[in-house]
């Protein structure tokens, strides 16, 4: 007779340094059912942004929703509001915004890969990847003045311009980073303990990914062609050479493979942005107050980030709704765990790259 055990994981756990709790029902070592509890640190950001803060202050607030994709949060909000106050944004500002989104993707994907290495027992590789991530964050600091939680995007454009010296620093940085990324990719694609043993582990089919509305690398690794960068016209992705990365298998290996290829894509797009960066102002004058409703979808490192805003011509918004990629990904995560070995849970979790800070906004 098989023995049934209920195992809690979180809300504080060494394999999951964020406030979420899973409860696994197992028979011997096999997971038969999972419950996820995400309601630990709700921070009331939506309420704060519609009661305490004026609409022009909100980009600074929502940049604090998440330390990993701060730019995507403030940019999503800003793009939504800009639709209902009729402000013309210069091409230069849109290019600079996109530049930062792609640098954000680089350091976020690196963090995920570092955690995967750590979980597999590759502590030196973890340190090495975190060191590479530091290089990217240094470039972001050159552009915005901050390593994290950048207040770079504002309604009407961006707060800081870049000059030729900063552009050269970014290009030199990527020149240094790219061969190192290639080394990391080589390891993640060919090392048994780090990646090959994860083929077939934590897998989701394309059909289930669609049914459960999986997003980002989680969905694309299962063969589902969904990437907001290919589905929106607000940011100039069609001009900077974006190509969607899709893989097959839907397992841990495929998810990391997608991230590694996407990082090469991001490097290419950053170079294209700097090469084609239009001249012009970076900040347009903003007049009036938001009236009406608007939504925006952007591709954050973990998938689709959604913002809805509604204004009634006052300085405070009537409603702001944030839907983050990890929030949408939880049903798929729960499904993936079923049937897996409990010992693989830390590796599967790391491959989701969950962000509970985003989820508990």
């Amino acid at each position, binding site marked *: 007779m098989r023995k049934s055990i209920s195992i809690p994981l979180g809300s504080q756990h060494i394999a999951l340094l964020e406030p979420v709790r899973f409860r696994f029902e197992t028979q011997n070592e096999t997971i038969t059912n999972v419950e996820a509890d*995400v*309601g630990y640190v*709700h921070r*009331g950001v*939506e*309420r704060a942004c*519609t009661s305490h803060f004026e609409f022009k202050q909100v980009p600074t607030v929502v940049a604090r929703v998440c330390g990993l994709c701060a730019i995507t949060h403030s940019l999503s909000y800003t793009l939504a509001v800009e639709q209902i106050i009729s402000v013309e944004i210069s091409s230069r500002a849109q290019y600079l915004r996109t530049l930062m989104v792609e640098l954000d993707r680089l350091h976020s994907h690196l963090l995920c890969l570092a955690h995967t290495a750590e979980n597999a027992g590759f502590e030196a590789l973890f340190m090495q990847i975190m060191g590479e991530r530091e290089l990217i964050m240094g470039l972001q600091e050159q552009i915005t003045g901050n390593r994290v939680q950048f207040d770079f995007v504002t309604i009407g454009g961006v707060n800081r311009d870049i000059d030729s010296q900063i552009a050269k620093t970014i290009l030199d940085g990527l020149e240094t980073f790219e061969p190192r990324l290639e080394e990391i990719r080589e390891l993640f694609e060919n090392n048994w303990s780090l990646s090959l043993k994860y083929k077939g582990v934590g897998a989701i089919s394309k059909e289930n990914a*669609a*049914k*459960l*509305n999986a997003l980002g690398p989680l969905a694309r690794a299962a063969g589902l*062609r*969904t990437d907001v960068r*290919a*589905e*929106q*016209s607000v940011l100039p992705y069609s001009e900077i050479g974006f190509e969607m990365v899709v893989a097959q298998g839907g397992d841990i290996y495929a998810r990391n493979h997608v991230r590694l290829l996407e990082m090469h894509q991001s490097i290419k797009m950053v170079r294209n942005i700097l090469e084609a960066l239009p001249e012009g102002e970076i900040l347009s004058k903003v007049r009036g107050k938001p009236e009406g409703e*608007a*939504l925006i*979808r952007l591709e954050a490192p973990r998938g*689709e980030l*959604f913002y*809805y805003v*509604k204004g009634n011509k006052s300085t405070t918004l*009537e*409603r702001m*709704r944030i*839907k983050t990629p990890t*929030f*949408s990904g*939880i*049903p*798929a995560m729960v499904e993936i765990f079923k049937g897996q070995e409990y010992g693989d849970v830390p590796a599967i979790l790391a491959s989701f790259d969950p962000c509970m800070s985003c989820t*508990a906004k």
Partner: protein
Amino acid sequence: MQKIETSPANFMADMEQFYDVSIWHFITINCLDTGEGFEVQYFFAKYDSFDEVVCYFFYSPYEASIPSIAPLIPSAYLGEGEMVDMFGIQIDGIEKGMFLDADSLQTPLRRGS
């Protein structure tokens, strides 16, 4: 964004006719407190298309219970749970407490809370 109005009574039938999992990606559910009740919105984006988002919405009185879309779109239960906690809207089969503890400020996005 294309907005399509429906009613609580017709909502599930409309969804069964509209929602094809291979064509539409369910984005999320949203709620607005209109002062007289709720406006409930469901957002969908079309795969492999450009800027194509559809929003189904309906109005519901404060005290009424609305159907859950989770039987059709299983992942929707989280968004519905969030709206139950944040607005105090009643959704069939969705219980309070998914996001807010009992000692938190209740229904924080409802007017006057």
